[in-house]
């Protein structure tokens, strides 16, 4: 049995406590301890971006993040994305553009797009592609995903 620690952090704006093994990933904590299954497990080694969350406002692969290191920090997941205007706009843009095929990469894409657009409010399509280089879509539906991010950046409905 691994050593466990109780940690506290702000999860989607809500003070949250969790008891986690010290070698557990933030992804496992979100899904298996806290029951938030919107964040997806795919490659488990940082290659695909399906598990992207924001920690202190910065996008990271939650499969590589130690859960104990969330202590005292701010974690945002897909479940809370529509609480903020940019997140809500992105969510609607993904729907309007049909930027979802099987949907498995979508939560990670939306979270990465949110982080990207916060730093680059008016990107070119090439900059968008570079911004989501760490996110794979195995349906290869990239064109509509880029369309959606572009639409959200323009504020299209």
């Amino acid at each position, binding site marked *: *049995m*691994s*050593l466990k*620690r109780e940690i506290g952090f702000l999860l989607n704006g809500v003070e949250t406590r969790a008891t986690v093994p*010290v*070698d557990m*990933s933030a992804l496992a904590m979100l899904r298996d301890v806290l029951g938030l299954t919107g964040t997806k497990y795919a490659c*488990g*080694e*940082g*290659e695909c*971006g399906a598990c*992207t969350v924001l920690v202190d406002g*910065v*996008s*990271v*692969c939650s*499969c*590589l*993040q*130690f859960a*104990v*290191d969330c*202590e005292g920090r701010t974690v945002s997941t897909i479940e809370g994305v529509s609480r903020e205007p940019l997140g809500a706009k992105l969510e609607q843009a993904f729907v309007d553009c049909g930027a979802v095929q099987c949907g498995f990469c979508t939560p990670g894409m939306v979270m*990465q797009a949110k*982080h*990207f657009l916060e730093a680059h409010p008016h990107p070119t399509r090439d900059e968008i592609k570079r*911004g989501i*280089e*760490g*996110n794979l879509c195995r349906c290869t539906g990239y064109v509509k995903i880029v369309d959606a991010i572009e639409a959200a950046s323009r504020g299209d409905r």
Partner: protein
Amino acid sequence: MTVEHYWAPTTLPDALDHLRGGDVTILAGGTDLMPQSHAGRVTLKRGLLNVRRVPELHRVERAEGAVRIGALCTITELMRDPLVREHFGLLADACDHFASDQLRNAATIGGNVCNASPAGDTLVPLLALDAEVELASKPDGRVETRRVPLADFFTGPGRTARAPDELLCAIRLPLPPPGFVGRFFKFGTRPALDISAISIAIGGVRSGRALTHVRVAYGAVAPVPLRARRTEAALEGAPLDAAAIDRVAATARDEVRPIDDVRASAWYRKELVFNMTRRILGDVAQA
């Protein structure tokens, strides 16, 4: 072995106290430690020391004739840092080629150095920038530091000269000579998230048709990131005409010692080293 202790100290002396007994795994960004430990390639030791909350490890500052980069600086932070961009374009370039946004946001320069992968993206430019590492320990209740040139720090794939009770606190980069220009090149099968088949950093000061103060380093072509001294000697002061460029590139091809692996054969790596060294020097000659 299961983890029996977890510490997240907020000062350097406290962190060093925990390291004193050895048998401790150091956690910084975690981007390598997490997948390696879950895959069983790295076994977590009895103590897990999270150093991420030690603020003094997280600064970029001017030091006499040098810039001192705290070990906890992330790749994203380095890419954007004004001092790094102004003086160490080679390093900023390499950071731009590093993995993906999500990994650059978490991975630290200290972690990349301590992992000592022959293909580590920042290691090749750091070698070409004459980096030194600063190691701290607390053997008798007092913090002691020593500096080791990066070229002597790597002792094998994944192995370094860091003692078990030492923490890599910072990387020191001497300010390059005036007029220093550098080029970084990484070859992989796609731009993002790829481990180099080879990487190259070449720097020097343009002097007429030649380069002086030459530094050359290669990644993923030897058990450790390689500072290519013979190639440097061939390049130093040589007028950059086609014959000289070919001679330097051939020296580089002889100097590297790659292996066959999943990413490329040794033969292919040697050919890449020759062709890309030639191309970079050709570009420098035209510039």
